[in-house]
C-alpha cells in the first residue's frame, strides 16, 4: 500500500539520518526516517558498553537539532533518542529499502516486505557499516561466523579465529584473549594499518603467547562440524598459507575486514561512482546532491566518516532541500579569525588571499587550507613583541602573512637582528628537532602571523608532499647557517642545500665507521648520536651529541679516513652535506675553515681525555642504552648517597593526589648511578603520538604534562617505552594532617599512597609533570634528605662527567 507523498524520505537512522529527520521535524517539513534495524544509530549502539565516543574535529561547531558531544556511548544514544522523540520524528524501524526509483519530485522507495514510500526528495544516509566485508569463501555465512563483536565478555573458553589486521581486529582479539584461545589470521607479514598502541599491544600479546598469529595466511573455506564432534569444536576452518593449506578447528570465526560502500544498491538508484575501486564513494555537489537530481547523499557514503560531520550534514541537507541557504558550519569561526586581518571581507576571499600570499601552502586544496586555518590562530603582535623566545620549549609553527619579523642573532642583544619577510615561515626547527627554540624572534611593523599547533602541522607535513619538501629545504639551509656557517649568505647556502640529503638512522645504526673514507659531514637534525673509538677491539664511547651538532668534520678537514664511529643513540635524522661542495665553501670562506678546525681540535682533546677515563665513557654508553639520548630532563639517583628512605616517592604521592609517579627502586643502575622509572620528558614524546583529545602538551620550560581533558583511553601508557605513565582516578583524596599524625597517630602518614575511592570518576592517565605548579621545582628532588636525587638534562650531565 502506497502512502501519501512526503517531502523528504531519509534512508538510514545513523547520526546523519537522524539529524536530518530531527531538523525536518523541527521545521515542520513532512518526512519519514527509514531504518532497516530495530534501533537508532545501530553502529554506535553496537559499540562496546561504556565506550568513549569522540567528537572530532573539536574546533568544528555542531549545528544540529539533536545534541552531540564527546562522552560515553550510553549518554550519546540517550541524547539522540530523546531528541528524536522531542521533535516528533516520523520514524519507521525495520524498514529496509530495497529499491529507489523515480525522479526529483516523485521518488518511490520500495521496502522489503512489499511496502512503498513516496517522496519528493531522498537523503541517503546509509553509511558503510551496513555492508561489512565478508570472508568471501564457502561457508562464510554459517552460524558462529560473524563480522561484529558486541561484547567480548560474552565468550569464554572458546577457540576463536579473528580474521583481519586492522584496529578493529586487534582490539577484538586482545579483548577476547583474556578468556579464550585466540588465533589471529593476518594476510600480510605485519600489522601495517594498526594504530601504534594497538600494534604494540598485539606484538606483545604474540610474544607472550597470550594469543597466536598466523602471518601470510588467508581463509580458504569454512565447514560446520557435527554437533557432537569428538574434537569438541564447532567449525573447521581451512586456511591457505605459504607452505600450503592447513586447517584449524575452532568454535567461532570473527571477520573484521572493514566495510564497503553498498555499490550494487547505490548504483541501482542511478548513482554513478567515479572509479572501479571497491572503496570509492560517489561524488556529491557542495549541497550533497548526487548525479541524480533530488537524491542526496550524506555521511560516510559521501566520504565524511566523522560523526560530527554527519550530524552537521544532516542539518544542512534539509536546509538545502527546503531552499534555505546555509554556510558551512565552520564559517563563523573562520570569519572571526579573519576579522583580525585588516582589509579582508568574506571567508572565501581570505582563504584565497592566504593561499596566494604563502607559497608554502600553494599546493593545498581550498578544503585542506580551510581545515588548516581552522586549527591555526591569526596573530597580530605589536612591533617589538616577542613571538618566540630563545630556549623555550614551544613547538608551534609560524607563517608570516604580512609585515616582517626580526630574528635576534644574539639573545642578549635586541639590536643585532636580521629580518624575515612576509611569505616566509619560522618555527620549523623546534617542530622537527623537538628541542628548545633556537632564537628569539620579535614582531616587526604591521605584522600578521598564522600560528599553527604542532599536531596540525605534522599532519600537513605527512599528507602534503610539497609542504614537507619546502619545510625540509628551508630547515636545511637555516640549520647549516645557524650551526656551521653563519658567515655565509643564505643564497649561497641554497646551493649547498641542494646537494644535501636527509638521512634516517635507526637506534644503534652507524652514520659512519672508523676507518671509512670521510666524504661528508652530518648535521644532526633530530635525535642524538654517540661518538666511539675502537680500543682493543671494543668500541669505547667518548662523546654524546644531541641534535644541533655536527659530526664528521675532522675527516673533511684533514682528508683522512674517519677517526671515530658515530652511531644513532635513538631514532635519528641527519642532514648529510657532500664533502666536495663543503670544501669549495671553505675555500671561499677561510674563517669557516678556521672555526671548524678549532672545534675539531677541541673534540680531539676531549676524546683523548675520555678514552683514558674509561668510566666516563661507560657511563655515557649506559645512559644512552637507557634511552636517555632522547630525554630532555631525567631523574638520576646517586646510589652512593641514597639511603632508600623513599622520601622522593612520598613527596611525589603527596603532591600528586596520592599517586607516586616515580618508582625509585625499579630501573637499571651503573656504577652508583641509578635511572629510576620516571618520566624523561622526551624531545619527541612518544606519549603525544596518539592522544585522541590532544591532551598532552609541553610547557615553554619543557615539561610534558597531561591536561584535564584526558579521556583515559590509555594510548599514552601503551606508547611510552619507559613505563612511566599510570592510569589513576584523578580526584583529590582527603589529605591527612601532619600534626594529627605526628602527635596522635591519626590518619595516614604524609606521602602514603592513597587512592581516590570516588567510583563515579573515571581513570585518567597520570605522569610526572616536574611539579610545574609547585614552587621550587620537582618535589622528589627537594625532599631527598641526602642529595641523592637530581633532575638534569642528560646533555649537561654527560658534559660534566667528561
Amino acid at each position, binding site marked *: 500500500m502506497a502512502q501519501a507523498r512526503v517531502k523528504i524520505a531519509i534512508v538510514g537512522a545513523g547520526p546523519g539520518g537522524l539529524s536530518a529527520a530531527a531538523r525536518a521535524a523541527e521545521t515542520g517539513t513532512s518526512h519519514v526516517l527509514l531504518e532497516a534495524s530495530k534501533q537508532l544509530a545501530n553502529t554506535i549502539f553496537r559499540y562496546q558498553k561504556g565506550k568513549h565516543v569522540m567528537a572530532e574535529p573539536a574546533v568544528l561547531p555542531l549545528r544540529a537539532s539533536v545534541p552531540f558531544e564527546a562522552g560515553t556511548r550510553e549518554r550519546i544514544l540517550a541524547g539522540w533518542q530523546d531528541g528524536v522523540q522531542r521533535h516528533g520524528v516520523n520514524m519507521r524501524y525495520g524498514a529496509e529499502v530495497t529499491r529507489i526509483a523515480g525522479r526529483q519530485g516523485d521518488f518511490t522507495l520500495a521496502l522489503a516486505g512489499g511496502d512503498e514510500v513516496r517522496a519528493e526528495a531522498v537523503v541517503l544516509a546509509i553509511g558503510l557499516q551496513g555492508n561489512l566485508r565478508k570472508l568471501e569463501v564457502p561457508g562464510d555465512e554459517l552460524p558462529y561466523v560473524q563480522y561484529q563483536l558486541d561484547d567480548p565478555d560474552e565468550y569464554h573458553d572458546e577457540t576463536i579465529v579473528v580474521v583481519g589486521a586492522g584496529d578493529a581486529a586487534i582490539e577484538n582479539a586482545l579483548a577476547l584473549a583474556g578468556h579464550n584461545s585466540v588465533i589471529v589470521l593476518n594476510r600480510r607479514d605485519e600489522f601495517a594499518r594498526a594504530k601504534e598502541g594497538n600494534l604494540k599491544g598485539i606484538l606483545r600479546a604474540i610474544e607472550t603467547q597470550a594469543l597466536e598469529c598466523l602471518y601470510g595466511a588467508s581463509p580458504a573455506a569454512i565447514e560446520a562440524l557435527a554437533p557432537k564432534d569428538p574434537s569438541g569444536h564447532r567449525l573447521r576452518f581451512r586456511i591457505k598459507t605459504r607452505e600450503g593449506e592447513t586447517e584449524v578447528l575452532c568454535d567461532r570465526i570473527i571477520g573484521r575486514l572493514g566495510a564497503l560502500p553498498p555499490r550494487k544498491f547505490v548504483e541501482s538508484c542511478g548513482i554513478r561512482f567515479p572509479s572501479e575501486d571497491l572503496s570509492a564513494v560517489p561524488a556529491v555537489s557542495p549541497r550533497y546532491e548526487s548525479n541524480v537530481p533530488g537524491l542526496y547523499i550524506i555521511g560516510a557514503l559521501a566520504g565524511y566518516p566523522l560523526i560530527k560531520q554527519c550530524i552537521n550534514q544532516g542539518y544542512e541537507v534539509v536546509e538545502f532541500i527546503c531552499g534555505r541557504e546555509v554556510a558551512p558550519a565552520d564559517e563563523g569561526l573562520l570569519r572571526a579569525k579573519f576579522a583580525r586581518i585588516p582589509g579582508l571581507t568574506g571567508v572565501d576571499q581570505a582563504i584565497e588571499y592566504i593561499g596566494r600570499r604563502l607559497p608554502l601552502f600553494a599546493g593545498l586544496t581550498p578544503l585542506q587550507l580551510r581545515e588548516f586555518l581552522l586549527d591555526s590562530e591569526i596573530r597580530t603582535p605589536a612591533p617589538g613583541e616577542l613571538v618566540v623566545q630563545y630556549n623555550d620549549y614551544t613547538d608551534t609553527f609560524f607563517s608570516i602573512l604580512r609585515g616582517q619579523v626580526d630574528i635576534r642573532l644574539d639573545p642578549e642583544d635586541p639590536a643585532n637582528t636580521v629580518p624575515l619577510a612576509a611569505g616566509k615561515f619560522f618555527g620549523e626547527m623546534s617542530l622537527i628537532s623537538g628541542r628548545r627554540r633556537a632564537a628569539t624572534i620579535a614582531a616587526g611593523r604591521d605584522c600578521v602571523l598564522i600560528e599553527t599547533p604542532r599536531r596540525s602541522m605534522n599532519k600537513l607535513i605527512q599528507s602534503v608532499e610539497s609542504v614537507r619538501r619546502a619545510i625540509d629545504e628551508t630547515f636545511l639551509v637555516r640549520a647549516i647557517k645557524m650551526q656551521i656557517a653563519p658567515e655565509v649568505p643564505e643564497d649561497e647556502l641554497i646551493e649547498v642545500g641542494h646537494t644535501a640529503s636527509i638521512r634516517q638512522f635507526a637506534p644503534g645504526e652507524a652514520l659512519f665507521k672508523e676507518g671509512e673514507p670521510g666524504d661528508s659531514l652530518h648535521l644532526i637534525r633530530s635525535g642524538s648520536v654517540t661518538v666511539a673509538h675502537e680500543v682493543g677491539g671494543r668500541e669505547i664511547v667518548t662523546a654524546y651529541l644531541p641534535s644541533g651538532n655536527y659530526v664528521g668534520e675532522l675527516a673533511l678537514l684533514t682528508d683522512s679516513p674517519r677517526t671515530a664511529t658515530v652511531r644513532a643513540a635513538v631514532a635519528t635524522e641527519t642532514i648529510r652535506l657532500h664533502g666536495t661542495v663543503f670544501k669549495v665553501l671553505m675555500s671561499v670562506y677561510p674563517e669557516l675553515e678556521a672555526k671548524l678546525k678549532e672545534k675539531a681540535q677541541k673534540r680531539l682533546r676531549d676524546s683523548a681525555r675520555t678514552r683514558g677515563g674509561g668510566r666516563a665513557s661507560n657511563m655515557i654508553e649506559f645512559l644512552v642504552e637507557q634511552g636517555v639520548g632522547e630525554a630532555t630532563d631525567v631523574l*638520576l639517583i646517586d*646510589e*652512593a648517597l641514597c*639511603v632508600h628512605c623513599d622520601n622522593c616517592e612520598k613527596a611525589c604521592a603527596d603532591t600528586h593526589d596520592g599517586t607516586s609517579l616515580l618508582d625509585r627502586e625499579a630501573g637499571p643502575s651503573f656504577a*652508583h648511578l641509578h635511572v629510576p622509572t620516571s618520566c624523561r620528558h622526551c624531545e619527541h614524546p612518544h606519549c603525544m603520538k596518539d592522544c585522541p583529545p590532544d591532551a598532552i602538551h609541553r610547557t615553554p620550560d619543557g615539561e610534558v604534562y597531561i591536561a584535564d581533558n584526558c579521556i583515559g583511553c590509555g594510548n599514552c601508557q601503551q606508547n611510552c617505552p619507559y613505563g612511566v605513565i599510570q592510569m589513576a582516578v584523578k580526584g583529590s583524596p582527603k589529605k591527612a594532617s*601532619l600534626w594529627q599524625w*605526628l602527635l596522635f597517630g591519626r590518619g595516614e602518614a604524609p*606521602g602514603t599512597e592513597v587512592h581516590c575511592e570516588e567510583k563515579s570518576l573515571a581513570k585518567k592517565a597520570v605522569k610526572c609533570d616536574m611539579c610545574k605548579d*609547585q614552587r621550587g621545582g620537582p618535589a622528589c628532588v627537594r625532599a631527598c634528605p641526602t*642529595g641523592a636525587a637530581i633532575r638534569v638534562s642528560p646533555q649537561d650531565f654527560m658534559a660534566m662527567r667528561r
Partner: protein
Amino acid sequence: MHESFVSYRNFFYLKLALGLCALAILAYALHQPVDPPNGGTWLGYTLGTIGAALIGWLAWFGVRKRRYGGNTTLVSAWLSAHVYLGGALLVVTTLHSGFQLGWNVHTLAYALTWLVVVTGFYGLYTYVAYPSAMTANRGGMTREQMIAEIAELDRECLQLADRVSQEAHQVVLRSIEETVLGGPVLEQLFGDPARRSASQKLSQGLDEVRRKIEARIAREVPDLSEVRDTEMTAIGFLAGQVMSDGAGPERLERVRRLFDLITRKRALVERAQRDIQYQARLQCWLYAHVPLTVGLLVALSIHIVSVFFYW
C-alpha cells in the same frame, strides 16, 4: 652534579657550626663571672637561649621533611645544617652548664642532648657508610628480585633432588624450610650467631664435597672415607652416600648440578640477609634518636620552667 648533604655548599654549615663553637668558647674564656661559670650568668643565659632555640629548630626537621609541598628549599640542605648545628649543640650546652652537673632534671636534659646527638652521629655514619656497601651487595638486583630468584632456585633444587633420590628430596626440602630472611630486630641488625657459624661450616663443607664430586666425575677416585667422616650436614653426607654406592655418571652429574644450585642459593641468601641488615641499620638509630628527642623536649621544658622559679 649530585651534591651530598655532608659537603653541601662546600661544607657551609660545618663552617657555620665551627664558627658558632669558636665564638662560644671565646666568650666563655673571656667571661669572668663573680660565681664560677654557670647557667645563671648573662653568658649562661645567652648560651642557654641559643641552645634551646637550636634544639627547637633541630626537632623541627622532623616536621619539615614531611612537608612536601610549597617549599623552595632542599631537604638535603636542611639535613646538612641539622647535622653540623646539632654537633655544635654539644659545645653550646656544655658551656651553658658551666660543667656543673648533678642528679637533677637539668643534667637530665644535658645528658639527653648528648644521647640524641650521639645517636644522630651514628645515623650520619650509616648514611655515609652503607649506601655504597648496599649498592655493591645488591649487584644491580632489587630485594624483590633476590627473593624471587631464591624461590626459583629452591624450585629447581627440589626438582633436581627429586631425580637424585627420595632422601635427597627430603634433605633439600628441610633446608628450604629452614631458610630464614629477616627475623627479629636484633637478628636483622647483627645476624644470628648460631646460624652464622652453621652457615660458614656448611659453605666449607659444600665446597669440599663439590670438589670431590668433580674429581669423581673426572675419574680421579677421591678418598671416599674422608667424605663420610667429615662432620657435615645431611647434604654432604648424602653426597658421600651417592658416591660410595657406585652411582653412574648421570646421577653424579645431577648431584654436581644440585650442589651448584645450592651453593648459588646460599650466596644469594647471604646477600639478601646482608641487604636486610644494611636497611635495618640505616633505620634503627631513628628509633632511638626520635624518642630521645621527644624526651629531651620534655626535660628541656621542665628545665626552663624550673629555672624561672629560681628568680
